[in-house]
C-alpha cells in the first residue's frame, strides 16, 4: 500500500540555520503518528513541509505517492486532500462559522452552495457545535474555535489530517474537548500526523511515536514502548521533564 506520507532525506535551512537535518519519515494510511520534541526541534517545520507551507531545501516528500517537491505538481489539488489544523486556529474572522466551512468547498471543490452547507452542518454536528453555525469566530471560546477549525478541514473530505500543536493555545479545561474529537477521528480510521505535547493522547491513540530533537529524528516506535522505556539519552531527558 502506498504510504500516506513518505519523507526522504529532508533538509530545511532558514538562512544558514539548518532546522531539518536529513529526515526520513513515513505515515501509513489509517495510521496516527504523533511527533514530540522540545521547541525548536523542527517538528512543526516537518509537519508544515508536508503540505508545502514551508519549502524544503532538499529531499523528497511524497503524499499518496505524489511528489509535492516536483514543481509540476498541482499543490492546490494536493492540499485540498490534506486537512490542516493550526495552533492558533486561524479561522477567518470576517466569516460566520458556516461560511468558514463552506468557502473552500465552493471555491476549490466547486460544490454547489446547498451541498456545501449540508456537508458543513454534518461536520459541525460531528464536533458538537451544530448550534453555533451563525456565530462569528470572535464570539467562540478557544476550544470551540479549534473544533470549528477541525470541522472546516473535515469539510474538504481530506484523506489525511495534519495537526500542529492543536491544543497548545487552549486553556487547560478546553483541551479535553478537542482531544476527544481527535480520538473519534482516529477511531474512524483517519490518517493523522499530530505534533503535540499531549503524551496521554500519544500513548492512547498513537500508532507510532516520533521523538525529534535538533532537527533529527532521535527515536521512533510504538508509543507505549517509547514512552515507558526510551532507549536514547535525549529521549529520556526530554520525557523526564514532560511526564
Amino acid at each position, binding site marked *: 500500500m502506498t504510504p500516506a506520507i513518505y519523507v526522504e532525506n529532508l533538509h530545511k535551512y532558514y538562512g544558514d540555520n539548518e532546522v531539518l537535518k536529513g529526515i526520513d519519515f513515513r505515515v501509513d494510511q489509517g495510521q496516527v503518528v504523533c511527533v514530540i520534541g522540545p521547541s525548536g526541534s523542527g517538528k512543526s517545520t516537518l509537519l508544515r513541509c508536508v503540505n508545502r507551507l514551508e519549502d524544503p531545501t532538499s529531499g523528497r516528500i511524497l503524499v499518496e505517492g505524489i511528489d509535492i517537491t516536483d514543481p509540476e505538481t498541482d499543490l492546490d489539488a494536493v492540499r485540498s486532500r490534506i486537512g490542516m489544523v493550526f495552533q492558533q486556529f486561524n479561522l477567518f474572522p470576517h466569516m460566520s462559522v458556516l461560511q468558514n466551512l463552506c468557502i473552500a468547498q465552493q471555491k476549490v*471543490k466547486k460544490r454547489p452552495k446547498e451541498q456545501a452547507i449540508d456537508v458543513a452542518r454534518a461536520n459541525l454536528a460531528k464536533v458538537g457545535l451544530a448550534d453555533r453555525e451563525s456565530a462569528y469566530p470572535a464570539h467562540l471560546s478557544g476550544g470551540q474555535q479549534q473544533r470549528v477549525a477541525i470541522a472546516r*478541514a473535515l469539510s474538504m473530505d481530506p484523506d489525511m489530517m495534519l495537526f500542529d500543536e492543536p491544543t497548545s493555545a487552549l486553556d487547560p479545561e478546553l483541551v479535553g474537548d478537542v482531544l476527544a474529537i481527535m480520538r473519534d477521528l482516529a477511531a474512524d480510521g483517519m490518517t493523522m500526523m499530530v505534533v503535540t505535547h499531549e503524551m496521554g493522547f500519544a500513548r492512547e491513540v498513537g500508532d507510532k511515536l516520533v521523538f525529534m530533537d535538533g532537527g533529527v529524528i532521535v527515536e521512533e516506535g510504538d508509543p507505549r514502548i517509547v514512552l515507558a522505556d526510551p532507549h536514547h539519552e535525549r529521549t529520556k531527558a526530554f520525557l523526564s521533564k514532560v511526564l
Partner: protein
Amino acid sequence: MKRSTKRQLRHTGLYVVLIAALLALLFGLDWKAVQETFFNSDGFKHNWHDLILTGAKNTAIYTVIAFVGGLALAIVLALMKLSEVGPYRWLATAYIEFFRGLPALITILMMGFGVPIAFHWHPPGGTAGAGLIGLVLVAGAYMAETLRAGIQAVPKGQAEASRSLGMSPAKTMGWIVLPQAFRIIIPPLTNEFVLLIKDTSLLSIIGATVGSRELTNVARDMLTSGPSAGTSTSLVMAGLLYLVITLPLTQLVAWLERRQRRAR
C-alpha cells in the same frame, strides 16, 4: 509663599493676559471693515444657491470619482508592490514615490494642460476632466500605501489556513486577505476621503464650464461678480460649507479608530 498660593497667582495671571488680548481685539479692530469683507449681508442672502447647488454638488461628485478611481488604482498598485515579480514591485514603488513626491497641483496642471497636447489625447470632460484624472493619479498613490500596509497587517496564519484548504494565491487574496485588509484600513481610508474633499479645490486652478465648477471655483468667481463682489464673503461661505462636510467625517474617523482599538 505657599505652593497653593503661587499656583493660584499663576492661574490668575494667565487669565488676565487672555482677557487683555481679547479686549485688545474687541476694541482695536475695525469691526465694520471685518464684517463688510467677510460677512457681507447681500452675499449671505444670495450666494448660497450657486455655492451649494453647483459648487458643493460638483465637489461631492469629483471627490467620489477621485476616491473610487484612486481606490481601483490603489488595489492594482498595492498588489504590484507585493508581487513576487521584481519589475512589478519596482514600477509600483516608482509610481507611488513619484506622485507622492510631487505637489498635487503640479500633477493636475500637467494633466490638464501638458499631457493632452503632448499625447494627442482628448480627455473626457476636456481640460477639467484631465485635471480630475490627475487627482485620481495622486489619490491612487496615497491609497496604495495605505492598502499595502493593511494587507501586510493581516496575520500570516490567515493566508496559510486558506492555502492549506487548497485555495489558490488569487482566491486567498480575494476572499480571505483583502476583505480583512479593507476592514483594517477603513479609518485611514476615510481620512484619505476627507483629504480628497479638500484637494478637489485644487481643480479650481483649471478652467471649467460654469456648470461644472467645484466649490472653490464658484466662490472665486463670486469675488469679482455678484452681490458680494469685491469682498471675501464667498470664500467664508465656501469655507463654512467645507467644514460642514469635513467635520462630521473627521469625527467619524475618530469614532472608527476608537471602535477598532476596542475590538483588539
